[in-house]
């Protein structure tokens, strides 16, 4: 564990907790920002980990399983956890209906955290869409340790760009690219990443949320001999390694392809072992 990690010596570090909702506001037309009062969960959580949320049942929307949600912000001082999510299915639809004061059952923290603290001086993170939520806590933790972060944010249009101010407040450099401005193509992003590696000392690659960006960073990582990590998503059952429903394909160390559980071996994986989809 890196120097920024909180040491957790509880015999039962993973817990189910009922957390009051502090806020659950729209960020744009499809994303909401959920803030929970979660003293226990906030204390133990680390960047890259997730919580498994028991979304309420409303009308025809009855999510049986929990929904995994990566942590957008860990506010240990105020005992708060923040999540940034896009409304896509039954679970996020009912999550969006939660009002301040209502309680949400969360289970966690779960999964493998990002491991960057002792491995780099300048993190280059490239996020598309909601992938930003997963990478944002790295920028904050890195900033506190004096590690530089440059975040390349990719979105459909400028109004879909989120968290630029928050990321800048952590000390991160922010470069935004969008489809509508024609700046988000792989070649354009490649030029930016190459520049950061060659001229700015970029020495660690992080990504989440885009297959083509994963492929790009894998290629550049191999070319420059730079390590990196990717956070992956998958539909989950239990979230704690028991049901084996959330597997994805990975390159096995000895060659060939193997399945790994996103909830247990991940959701953060070595960038070169991930198989693009």
């Amino acid at each position, binding site marked *: 564990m890196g120097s920024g990690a909180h040491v957790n010596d509880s015999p039962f570090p993973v817990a189910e907790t009922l957390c009051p909702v502090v806020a659950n506001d729209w960020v744009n037309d499809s994303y909401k920002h959920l803030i929970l009062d979660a003293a226990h969960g906030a204390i133990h959580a680390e960047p890259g980990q997730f919580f498994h949320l028991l979304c309420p049942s409303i009308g025809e929307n009855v999510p049986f399983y929990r929904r995994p949600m990566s942590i957008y912000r860990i506010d240990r001082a105020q005992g708060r956890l923040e999540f940034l999510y896009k409304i896509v299915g039954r679970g996020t639809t009912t999550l969006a209906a939660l009002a301040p004061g209502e309680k949400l059952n969360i289970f966690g923290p779960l999964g493998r955290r990002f491991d960057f603290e002792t491995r780099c001086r300048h993190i280059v993170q490239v996020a598309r869409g909601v992938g930003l939520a997963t990478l944002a806590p790295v920028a904050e933790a890195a900033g506190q340790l004096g590690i530089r972060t440059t975040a390349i944010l990719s979105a459909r249009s400028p109004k879909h760009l989120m968290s630029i101010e928050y990321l800048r407040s952590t000390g991160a450099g922010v470069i935004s690219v969008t489809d509508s401005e024609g700046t988000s193509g792989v070649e354009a992003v490649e030029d930016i990443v190459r520049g950061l590696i060659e001229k700015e000392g970029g020495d660690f690659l992080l990504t989440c949320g885009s297959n083509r960006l994963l492929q790009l960073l894998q290629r550049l990582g191999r070319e420059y001999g730079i390590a990196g990590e990717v956070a992956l998503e998958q539909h989950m*059952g*239990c979230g704690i390694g*028991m049901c084996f*429903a959330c597997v994805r394909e990975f390159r096995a160390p000895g060659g060939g392809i193997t*399945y790994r559980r996103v909830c247990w071996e991940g959701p953060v994986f070595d960038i070169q072992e991930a198989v693009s989809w």
Partner: protein
Amino acid sequence: MVDMRVRIGEIELKNPVMPGSGTMGEGLARVMDLNRIGAIVTKTITPDKREGCVPPRMVEYKDGSLMAIGIPCKGPDHYIEEILPHYRAYATPVVCSVSAPTVEAFGQLAAKLSVPGVSVIEANISCPNLEQDGKAFGMDAEASARVVRRIKESTDRPVWAKLTPNVTDIAAIAQAVEAAGADAITCANGMLGMAVDVENFQPALGNITGGMTGPCMRPIILRMAWQVARAVKIPIIGSGGMATARDALEYLMVGCSAVQIGTINFVRPTAMLEVIDGVEAFCRRKGLRAARELTGAMVPRREFKEQQVA
């Protein structure tokens, strides 16, 4: 003080609540004290290494799910060296679930896994029988009996036979495994189902078919447990859709000596503890001194008699 101990053949459990095979793992030890549950039941071990089914592996419904996981397994040596040691710290007995493609392979695997730390062998006979065109052993009374007989020859551990619900007459299968020497019966596994992803004109599961489990299955598996209880004398461990203590009480009252909590562990990881506490509270409320008094405690309703109407 309620005596929560139950006896399954020669094994005594501190209480009647345990996980269903494949619904717990080492991760649960980070959430709760595994000394509190009646038994630890490990995920099925096969003789060969298996990656499991192609994803997607799960379809969710309002009150249950369809899963096709395919028993991913790193083999018996990995189990003995890497998985079993996680459970050494607990006084709770370990039930080792096994599955194999042939009768002989079942026997060899059970022998290999009868190591210190394994208290019971549970035969998962819901897997396809390669000697019978892939039809599950558990769908055939004679094949089920042959598996149990072969495992009994190869181990001194008690053998529990976990039946499949995908049969016409589960009582006949239960009688066959009892006659073959099974020490107890686990009733039952998931029911075969399928789903279609209509947007993409594809099967929703990578494996096409899967096992339906969860609360929606409870009335059907409960009925089977009742039928099995009437047909055999060996203990029965109910396993099907239980989420609460009330659900477990149903299984105990129709004749089960213990229960396995399965799919709900994925949603409420401490569900087993709630069931243990709830069964104990129920016994206190009803003035029962021991949880074992619940087994078969369901009494018949008054029968209809014409003269009472007249």
